[in-house]
């Protein structure tokens, strides 16, 4: 930290950047002459630009990767060794069953950070600037989700690598694993629109987290992520069997094991479509009103 003294005598102790070279109106005038105004960007270009912004934010504030890696790793270790012996005889057997499930659970859980980033960004001036641009309006939200897709991919890669170390051997090979991760990303992309909605709807980041927990915990635990639903009472089975997370977990588990669970994949995609159709427009309506 250097303390500079500006020509007018005020000290600037808080910044390491020296005041820039003096500039004049003459230097500004020439850059203003360009009246060329390109046509507005396509929906894809705009979304990718916002996605790039999200990636830059990860680059500049890498702490946010901690949430998406440490938490899944903790989940994986905890559940494998806590339940493994009791539920499947040994952690080694259990991990074959539980890893895809925990992967699903962890990634679905970290989708809530989308809502948190929307919520913390929305009151900043830069949001106002984005909103005064002539753009395909959902592109900013899609941008968040693209950045988040990168986080989900990182989280998946970390968990799968650790899983392999712990003894996980996917029967579907590289292809099966990639197909499973891809399906998970598609579902998470659609699911995240719930959080963009809450990010815009709720006042504080804390309330977004609170609501997210209340939705995600029952949804992930009351599913087939940890155990086969056949051991559950009938009324609970009714819920668990129709839970989108159950479909997703079965589909991912199947793909990674080298089976082709057509019905479960179809159910998962149908749920994803439904979530997108409902929460996408609601989010955009809230965004326009903001």
């Amino acid at each position: 930290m250097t303390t500079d003294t500006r020509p007018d005598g005020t000290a600037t102790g808080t910044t390491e950047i020296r005041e820039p070279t003096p500039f004049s109106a003459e230097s500004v005038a020439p850059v203003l002459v360009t009246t060329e105004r390109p046509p507005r960007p396509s929906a894809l270009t705009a979304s990718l630009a916002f996605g790039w912004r999200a990636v830059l934010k990860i680059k500049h504030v890498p702490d946010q990767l901690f949430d998406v890696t440490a938490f899944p790793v903790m989940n994986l270790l905890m559940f494998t060794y806590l339940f493994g012996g009791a539920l499947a005889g040994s952690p080694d057997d259990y991990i074959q069953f539980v890893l895809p499930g925990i992967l699903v659970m962890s990634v679905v859980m970290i989708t809530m950070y989308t809502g948190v980033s929307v919520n913390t960004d929305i009151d900043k001036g830069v949001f106002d600037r984005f909103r005064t641009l002539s753009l395909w309006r959902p592109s900013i939200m899609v941008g968040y989700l693209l950045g988040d897709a990168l986080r989900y991919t990182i989280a998946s890669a970390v968990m799968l690598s650790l899983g392999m170390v712990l003894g996980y051997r996917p029967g579907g090979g590289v292809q099966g694993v990639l197909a499973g991760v891809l399906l998970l990303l598609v579902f998470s992309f659609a699911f995240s629109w719930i959080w963009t909605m809450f990010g815009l709807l709720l006042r504080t980041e804390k309330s977004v987290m609170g609501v997210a927990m209340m939705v995600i915990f029952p949804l992930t635990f009351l599913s087939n992520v940890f155990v086969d639903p056949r051991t559950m009472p009938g009324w609970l089975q009714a819920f668990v069997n129709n839970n989108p997370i159950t479909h997703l977990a079965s589909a991912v588990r199947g793909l990674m094991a080298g089976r082709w669970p057509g019905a479960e994949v179809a159910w998962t995609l149908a749920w994803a479509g439904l979530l997108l159709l409902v929460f996408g427009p609601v989010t955009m309506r809230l965004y326009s009103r903001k």
Partner: protein
Amino acid sequence: MNQPTPAPAVETAGLVKTFGGTRAVDGVDLVVPTGTVYGVLGPNGAGKTTVVKMLATLLRPDGGEARVFGHDVVRDADRVRSRVSLTGQYASVDEDLTGTENLLLLGRLLGHGRRAARERAARLLDAFGLAEAAGKQVKQYSGGMRRRIDIAASILNTPDLLFLDEPTTGLDPRSRNQVWDIVRAVVAQGTTVLLTTQYLDEADQLASRIAVIDRGKVIAEGTKGELKASVGAGSVLLRLRDPAQRPRAAEILRRALDAQVQHEHDPVALTARIGASSTATAAERAAGALAELARLGITVDNFALGQPSLDEVFLALTGHGADGPTPRTATPGTTAGPAGTTTTTGTERTA
């Protein structure tokens, strides 16, 4: 579209915005001619930001109409967006990103190709004296540099109408002058600028027409000259050597300046508000008064001539003072007396 005369840059009629129970903007009528700087002057909470946000399509009006270049800000929002840009009161760039990244992002969002966006970003950073800081995160910038990157972002595509919401609040005099220079350069290229400010001297420096708003209403509108005539030419602050001479000095000032004279708490200080009607300028008349005081043997330690402060404008226009912060001191150019005594009066007067 085939209007006989080109539409004004901004035209509002009975514009209203309410937040809960408060009418933040309460029936504002404005006409901003193209190609000029239009100043919107008002204290904290007057409704300046709310007006600008409605014009920039960020807030939906609750009543009345607003058109920008003839396009309705609600029905034709996208057309309006393609022609305006906004430098908000608070940083409207991403503080986590570097200067270059911010401008690149905006370049892409404005439809430039990758190469064009990169070139434009580099040129702008250069022109604004930010080349050295281009790779640093904006959150490390000083206040003046932030304002500059903010304005650079707003003119990435030279807009037809630029909104500047309190562009110099919180800046030191040097940075403020730089911002003023930029505004002048922007206007010289044909862009219309709508500028909000709390400082009369800023509006005076830049704007050709000024609207004064208070509590959501326009309380005065006109050219600078018209506005000043309604307020008075300014005021002088005197500090005498000997408190005992104050009553006599007050009497002389009253006669020489045709002004209301007020006694400050400080037993040697006097303030006189100069009326606007006379033929001589405020400076000439103040000089005359000083000569008269000297002739009568009254020693003046310190003397300052200030423009009417915002507080005085409000006092003159509404009968109540502005509730805002201490108005800024007079511009150096209007100050006489020893360096460092650039205080205007009015603010120091206790109610």
